[in-house]
C-alpha cells in the first residue's frame, strides 16, 4: 500500500506538470491565433459534449508548421542554433578537458578544494555570470582597457553584441557542466595502465589518445550532452551578449510568445525544437542509466 503511494505521488506530479503540458503545447501548435482570451482558436468546449469535441478537432490543422517552413527566419534560427550549440560544445570540451585532467592528476589532498572551486561558479547565479561579461567585453570595458593600456591593440575591439561574445558566454557558463562529468571519469582512471603503456614503448601523447581519452568516454558523452541540449534552447546568453544578428531559436520562441503574442506559432517552434532534441535527450538518459547500473 505504502509502496503504491510512494510511486503514485511523484508519478502523478510528473504526469500532471510535465507530460500533460506537452500534450497541451502539441494541441495549441495545431490551433490558430485569435484575438481572444486565451489568444488562440479553437478552444475545447466540453459542456457541449460530442459536438463540442468534434468542432474542436475539426478546427485543428498543421498551418503553423507549414508557416514555419515557408518563413526562412525559422529555418535560419534552427540551423544557427545548431551550429552555435555544436561549436560551443566542442569549445567547452577543449577548454574543460585540460582542467578536468589537471584536477584528476593533482595531489589527492588538493582535489576536494579544486572540486569546490569548480562547483562554486555552478552554484552562483547563471544570470549574473552571463551579465559579468557585459562589463568585460564592452567597447569601453575591462578587456579593451587592458589591451589598449598594454599597447597590444590601438583600436578597441568590438566583441559585445556579436556571436563571439555568445560563444565566450556559453563556454564560461557551461564549463562546470563539462568539467564535473569529465573529472568523475578521469579520476577513476588507473595510473598503472598509463605506466604499462609507457613501459611498452608508447609515447606520452600516444598513451593519452589510446588510453586516457577512450576511458573517459562516458564523461565526454555526459558532458557534451549537458552542454549541447540546453544551449540549443538558450535564451539568456544570446539576448544579453549577442547582437541583433545573433539568431537562436530560444530567442525566437521568446519573442514569438512575449512580443508577438502568437502562442500557436510559439508552440509549433517548441514542438520542432523538441523533435530535434528528443534523440540527444533519450541518449543522455540512457547514458546516465548505464552509468548507474555499472555502479551498482
Amino acid at each position, binding site marked *: 500500500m505504502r509502496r503504491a503511494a510512494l510511486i503514485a505521488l511523484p508519478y502523478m506530479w510528473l504526469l500532471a506538470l*510535465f507530460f500533460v503540458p506537452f500534450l497541451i503545447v502539441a494541441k495549441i501548435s495545431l490551433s490558430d491565433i485569435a484575438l481572444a482570451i486565451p489568444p488562440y482558436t479553437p478552444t475545447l468546449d466540453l459542456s457541449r459534449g460530442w459536438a463540442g469535441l468534434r468542432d474542436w478537432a475539426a478546427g485543428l490543422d498543421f498551418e503553423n508548421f507549414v508557416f514555419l517552413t515557408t518563413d526562412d527566419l525559422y529555418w535560419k534560427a534552427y540551423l544557427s542554433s545548431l551550429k552555435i550549440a555544436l561549436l560551443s560544445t566542442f569549445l567547452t570540451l577543449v577548454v574543460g578537458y585540460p*582542467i578536468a585532467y*589537471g584536477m584528476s592528476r593533482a595531489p589527492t589532498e588538493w582535489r576536494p578544494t579544486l572540486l569546490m572551486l569548480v562547483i562554486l561558479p555552478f552554484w552562483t*547565479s*547563471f544570470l549574473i555570470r552571463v*551579465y*559579468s561579461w557585459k562589463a568585460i567585453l564592452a567597447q569601453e570595458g575591462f578587456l579593451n582597457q587592458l589591451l589598449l593600456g598594454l599597447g597590444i591593440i590601438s583600436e578597441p575591439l568590438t566583441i559585445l553584441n556579436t556571436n563571439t561574445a555568445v560563444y565566450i558566454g556559453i563556454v564560461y557558463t557551461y*564549463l562546470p557542466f563539462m568539467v564535473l562529468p569529465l573529472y568523475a571519469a578521469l579520476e577513476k582512471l588507473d595510473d598503472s595502465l598509463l605506466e604499462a603503456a609507457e613501459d611498452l614503448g608508447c609515447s606520452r601523447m600516444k598513451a593519452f589518445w589510446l588510453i586516457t581519452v577512450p576511458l573517459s568516454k562516458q564523461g565526454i558523452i555526459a558532458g557534451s550532452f549537458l552542454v549541447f541540449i540546453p544551449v540549443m534552447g538558450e535564451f539568456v546568453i544570446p539576448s544579453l551578449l549577442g547582437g541583433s544578428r545573433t539568431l537562436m531559436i530560444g530567442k525566437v520562441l521568446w519573442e514569438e510568445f*512575449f512580443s508577438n503574442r502568437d502562442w500557436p506559432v510559439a508552440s509549433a517552434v517548441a514542438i520542432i525544437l523538441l523533435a530535434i532534441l528528443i534523440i540527444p535527450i533519450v541518449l543522455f538518459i540512457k547514458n546516465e542509466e548505464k552509468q548507474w547500473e555499472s555502479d*551498482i
Partner: protein
Amino acid sequence: MRRISWFNATSLTLGFAFLYLPMIVLIVYSFNSNKLVTVWAGFSTKWYGELFHNEAFLDAAWVTLRVAVVSSTLATVLGTAAAYVLVRGGRFFGRTLFSGMLYAPLVMPDVILGLSLLLLFISVGLDRGMLTIILAHTTFSMAYVAVVVTSRLVAFDRSLEEAALDLGCTRWDAFKSVTLPIIAPAVISGWLLGFTLSLDDLVIASFTSGPSSTTLPIKIFSAVRLGVSPEINALSAILIAIVTVGVITTSLVSKRAITKRQREENRAGP
C-alpha cells in the same frame, strides 16, 4: 606524494583564472563610485546603500526567497520518493516513462518547460502568481534532487536495510531509521541545489509569474538588458558572497560529518 606537472599546473591556473576573473571584476566594479561602471572614479559603497532603499528589488527578493524555500522543500520530498522508488522499488508499470519524465527536465531547454507549464496553467484556469512559479520550480528541481539522492542510494550498502528488515522493522521503519540517516547528506544537498536553482531561474519564472509576483532574476534581467548598471553590480556582489559562504560552510560541515562517521565506523569495526 606525486608532484604536479607543469602542463597540469598551467591548465589549472588558466582554467580557474577564466572561471573567477569575471566575477572578481564584477565585485571590484561594484565599489566604483562612478555611474559609468567601467571608468574607475574612486572607492565607494554608495550603490549598496541605494540598493537597500530600492523597494522594488526588496519586494522581488522576498518573493524569490519564499518561492525558493517552498519549491525546494516540495521538490526534496517528491524527488527523494522518486529516487527511492527507482532504485529500490523494483519493476512497476510505466517505470521507463517515469524515469524519462523525471530526468528529462535536467536537460530540457527552459523555454520549452516554461511555455508548456504556462499553457497548462492557462488551460486549467489557474491565475499566474507565486503558486504557479512554485509548481513550475518544484517540477524541475525534483529532477536534480532525484539525481543527487539516486547516486547516494546506489552507493550505500543494501545489507544494512535488509538487516533492519530481518530484525523485524517494517519497511517504513527501516527507511526512517536506516536509509534516511545515511542518505541525509544527499537529501540536504538536493534541497540546497533546488533552492539555488529556484533563486536563479529567469526563463521559467518569466513564463509562469503574474504581474504581482516579479522575482529577482526577472528584475535583474530587465535592468541589465540594455547595459551595465552599478546597482546590479552591487546586488551581484552580495549574491556571490552569499553563495560563497554557503558553499564553503556546507562543504566544511559535510567534511566533518564524514570524518566523524569514519571514526565511528572504525570504532565499531573489528
